[in-house]
């Protein structure tokens, strides 16, 4: 299936008008607002990223059923892809997760002290799992991918070991939603709670898209590289 909605020749401003949620990914590509009438290609070139990868990411963030074709996912994307994923990690921790943590703690403080303590603890556990997961990707998975991409000898790690890892984190975020929606006592922080929930849902959606990029670009790409590596051929 070919999507021609976004192209490198499109004005970046028009891309944002089609899907405003793409605003969230601009900083991960190093692009700041104020780009005037520049095209996607121009903005990407300024930042030294491949326009085809940027467009692919925009499609993945916009269409649920978009799966990039195998021949569109190429070795030359590895650096951009890893840089993008790393920037996403730090974005999550520094922005939405930090903001949700702060809001959640403020709300928890309005409960009785024992309750507030367990709520704090729950969130810290979630955050630590998230940090560990990101760290694992950055310290194990990404270096491995770089090696395979550069046709260096890689250790026995294979990308298939990577795929399982997400479920706990999604589970906890979902539990967090239900705790805030259903189980914090009535009348606790009505408005703040709604704002918090919007942020949690937003984070969840964003992380799901992040996972799509991993599942539909990163993993197929590494499979391709691993195969080529095994046969000692070019991919």
């Amino acid at each position, binding site marked *: 299936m070919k999507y021609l909605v976004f192209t490198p020749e499109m004005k970046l401003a028009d891309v944002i008008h089609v899907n405003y949620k793409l605003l969230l990914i601009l900083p991960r590509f190093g692009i700041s607002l104020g780009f005037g009438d520049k095209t996607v290609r121009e903005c990407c070139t300024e930042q030294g990223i491949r326009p085809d990868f940027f467009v692919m990411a925009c499609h993945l963030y916009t269409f649920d059923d978009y799966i990039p074709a195998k021949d569109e996912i190429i070795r030359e994307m590895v650096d951009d892809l890893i840089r993008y994923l790393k920037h996403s990690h730090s974005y999550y921790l520094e922005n939405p997760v930090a903001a949700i943590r702060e809001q959640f703690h403020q709300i928890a403080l309005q*409960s009785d002290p*024992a*309750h507030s*303590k*367990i*709520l704090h*603890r*729950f969130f810290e*556990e979630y955050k630590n799992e998230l940090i560990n997961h990101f760290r694992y990707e950055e310290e194990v998975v990404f270096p491995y991918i770089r090696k395979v991409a550069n046709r260096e000898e890689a250790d026995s790690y294979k990308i298939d070991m990577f795929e399982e890892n997400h479920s*706990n984190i999604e*589970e*906890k975020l*979902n*539990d*967090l939603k*239900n*705790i805030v929606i*259903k*189980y*914090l*006592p009535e009348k606790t922080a009505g408005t703040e709670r709604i704002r918090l929930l919007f942020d949690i849902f937003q984070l969840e959606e964003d992380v799901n898209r992040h996972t799509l990029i991993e599942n539909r670009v990163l993993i197929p790409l590494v499979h391709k590289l691993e195969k080529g590596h095994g046969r000692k051929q070019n991919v």
Partner: protein
Amino acid sequence: MAGNKTYKIVLIESSPIIIQGIQELLRPHREFSFIAVVRKGKRYAETLRHLSPDLLLVNPQLLDSRQMQPTDPAEAPAVIALSYQYLHPEILQHYNTVIDINDDRETIVRKLQQALAIPQPAGETNESNELSVREKEILVSVAKGMINKEIAEQHHISVHTVITHRKNITRKTGIKSISGLTVFAILNNLIEMSEVE
């Protein structure tokens, strides 16, 4: 959602009266489909491997219940005993629940639904989303960090039953993770903070 799924049942029973009777009784309930009848307990293991049923209806006299310990509890079917006379509690602890020969259709259906953790249509049954007393007890054990086997031993029930309770708890509360369940237990004053530290 619950309307579309069919639950595969394997019946382990030798009596033609019971075999035909229970299938006849459940015929109006399309969600239950009998996919096999095993007349001899010895054939039980191989049949299961091939069929992966959701539920076993078992005459305990045909089966050595020690064989029933599943390799992977998460994948294991629910197991219900068919009882025609007194059964020793030690046997029954391997089963989620018991269908008595005198149970009527409604009771049997309810027991099947509970064992399968099928969501009940709201308002139609007495069972609300409130946790039962038993479920609260199990929840407290989970919050204390006990594993299924320890919970089973403490409450004198089978691991199967613990898993069914846990599925029901998660269905009712919308909370899956152990730390989430701990939060739930504390917010609802089922347990003290000091007990989970």
